[in-house]
């Protein structure tokens, strides 16, 4: 897998030919999706929850400087250190420096998308540090040398046979494909890593400004081990992952786990307020919070601002027909699915991610399930518009947009064009579908087949039927 390659089509094709992936993704997607549906039904008034949480998130984003200031002050009051990182590289060098200053060698990590975003592991390993992922899914991927393909279920594209093979290699003995045997091996093996680690690194699901608390949501308990056993805990957060008080946390948590897996709450919700206190015999002696911008503040001034409301539940991936067919890796970026298609071009630029806004059928299922009401499919259209304006779109597509715009706003021309379209495409059509063709047609059919236009247009049919219009 090449993260740099900006060729969505090639990666999608590869995914479509991957029989393992074609079985695995829909299977897990269905489970997560039906979990969310049941949880939403159980809430009864899910629309009220979405509306309120959306408003809460928007207030947070609009007052981000104030809430972050409050958070930083309270983390310091709790005895923790606060670092601000404008760029990914800044965040990485802060972690490197903490490791170096403390003579650390071994690092354990809990699942965190922000550390994927800043490519932390790669840099720390280059520095000669051992970094072990402890979330079961992330551990599977680390053994396989792969990246997460889903925000919540990072290894959902893996079948158990592959996992048993990877674990058998790590164990140096043959393990069965039985889930509990595989988990027992991981527990034992990773427990040793926890006991020996010098530094634990986590992300941050939500930071609570009013008390300087980092809240971690996990089912396995690896985030708890990561924040309890090593002498140093480093939490890394995207700057928007903040709630003003524990009241807002209530709503955010309620919606996060229900939207992600359908659980009413995760097994563990852990609030970390600084390092261990006087009289504590466990917990880290040093606590560091790294607050990362990495392109987020630029989003504040754009039409895409609402994307910062995201609480990383993954619900949009679990309903996306495109994600279902190509999986997360095809997106070629850190975040996948509809949220990735909106966010990646903003964080990485159109140069590398220009194809992602087109990796959508614009069916709107993502927007419908988003617990914070991000208008995801509208933002995808916004991206397409911006790409056209900034010249990132192939010439043909631009002409198609232009020509269609002209026709659509001139009824007489449209009507003529529709007639011509049917007659004119007969040459390339087969069984009512067109899969190739010249000029404007090629721009369309390079990516998908086009149904041949009907001989009679809807408008003509309507007229012929004496279309009962009121006016």
């Amino acid at each position, binding site marked *: 897998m090449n993260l740099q390659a900006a060729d969505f089509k090639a990666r999608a094709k590869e995914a479509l030919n991957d029989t393992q992936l074609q079985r695995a993704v829909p299977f897990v997607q269905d489970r997560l999706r039906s979990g969310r549906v049941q949880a939403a039904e159980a809430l009864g008034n899910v629309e009220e929850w979405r509306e309120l949480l959306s408003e809460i998130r928007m207030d947070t984003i609009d007052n981000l400087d104030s809430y972050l200031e*409050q958070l930083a002050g309270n983390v310091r009051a709790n005895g923790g250190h606060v670092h601000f990182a404008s760029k990914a590289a800044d965040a990485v060098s802060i972690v490197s420096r903490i490791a170096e200053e403390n003579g650390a060698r071994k690092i354990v990590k809990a699942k965190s998308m922000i550390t994927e975003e800043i490519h932390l592991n790669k840099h720390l390993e280059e520095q000669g540090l051992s970094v072990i992922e402890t979330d079961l899914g992330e551990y599977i991927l680390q053994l396989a040398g792969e990246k997460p393909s889903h925000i919540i279920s990072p290894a959902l594209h893996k079948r158990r046979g592959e996992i048993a093979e990877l674990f058998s290699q790590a164990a140096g003995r043959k393990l069965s494909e039985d889930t509990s045997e595989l988990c027992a091996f991981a527990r034992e093996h990773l427990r040793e890593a926890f006991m020996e680690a010098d530094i634990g690194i986590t992300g941050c699901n939500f930071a609570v400004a009013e008390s300087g608390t980092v809240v971690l949501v996990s*089912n396995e308990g690896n985030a708890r081990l990561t924040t309890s056993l090593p002498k140093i805990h480093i939490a890394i957060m995207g700057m928007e992952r903040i709630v003003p008080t524990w009241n807002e946390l209530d709503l955010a948590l309620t919606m996060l786990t229900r939207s992600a897996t359908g659980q009413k709450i995760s097994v563990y919700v852990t609030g970390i307020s600084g390092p261990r206190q006087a009289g504590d015999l466990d917990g880290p002696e040093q606590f560091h919070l790294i607050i990362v911008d990495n392109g987020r503040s630029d989003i504040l001034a754009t039409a895409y601002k609402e994307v910062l409301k995201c609480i990383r539940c993954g619900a949009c991936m679990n309903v996306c027909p495109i994600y279902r067919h190509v999986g997360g890796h095809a997106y070629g970026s850190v975040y996948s699915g509809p949220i990735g298609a909106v966010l990646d071009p903003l964080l990485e630029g159109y140069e590398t991610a220009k194809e992602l806004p087109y990796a959508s059928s614009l069916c709107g299922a993502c927007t419908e399930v988003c617990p914070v009401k991000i208008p995801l499919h509208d933002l995808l259209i916004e991206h397409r518009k911006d790409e056209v304006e900034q010249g990132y779109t192939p010439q043909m597509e631009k002409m198609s947009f232009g020509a269609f715009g002209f026709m659509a706003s001139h009824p007489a021309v449209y009507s003529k064009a529709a007639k011509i379209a049917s007659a004119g495409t007969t040459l390339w059509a087969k069984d009512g579908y067109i899969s190739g063709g010249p000029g404007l047609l090629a721009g369309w059919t390079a990516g998908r087949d086009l149904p041949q236009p009907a001989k009679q247009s809807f408008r003509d049919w309507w007229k012929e039927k004496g279309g009962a219009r009121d006016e």
Partner: protein
Amino acid sequence: MNEPVEQAAFLGSIAEKLGRKRRTAVSPPSWDRKPWEGSGQELNPEAEAGGRQAAEHEQLIRQFMKQLSALNTAVYRISRADFGRVLSEVIAKHGIGSAISWDDGRLHELQLESTLNRNGIHHRLWRTTENERELRTFAESADMGITFADMGLADTGTVLLMNGGGRGRLISLLPPVYVAVLPERFIYPRLSDGMSFVRSRIPEGLPACINFITGPSRTGDIEADLALGVHGPGKVHIILLQD
């Protein structure tokens, strides 16, 4: 306090992108809507639940138990006098040989140690005067961890643990079997009650670690197949005290 330079630059850039001057000390609006029902009572789990209707509270206890039984967690609703007998049952069920518990007056009152002794359990308390490394090693190999809980939440089947000092966070985490003891009068309707409780403790300073625990450690990372005990305890027992 003077603001650190990096912080000033970072926050200044946010304000600029938002197209306004820096803001400070903003309070969130008081959201007037509560999408859930039946919350908002005075929160003090230490106090008697005198203000609440007994029947209403009975409902909460049943909801708490029902929720947990759906999450592979055994709940025992017993009188204080039966604590020793029930704990002995749990010990026998899992073939427990060693245990570690919070050093907490609320557990001492239940004669926890004498129950453990009677069952021949090798056990230690998380005493802050002890050697850290030694205690941690013991906790890592112990078969069972025992803590008290500060609150129960009926809607989710959650127990809330305020860790710190003799109430070590590792007790509910390292051993494969975990037992939490909770007076049933500490059960409240939902997460918002837990949040209000935590908020009420902010003025005196929160402990470094707070845990909301709901059932056994679990994962679905292998083909969404539910597996218990992947990192934390795979067996969880809640002992509800009827007092």
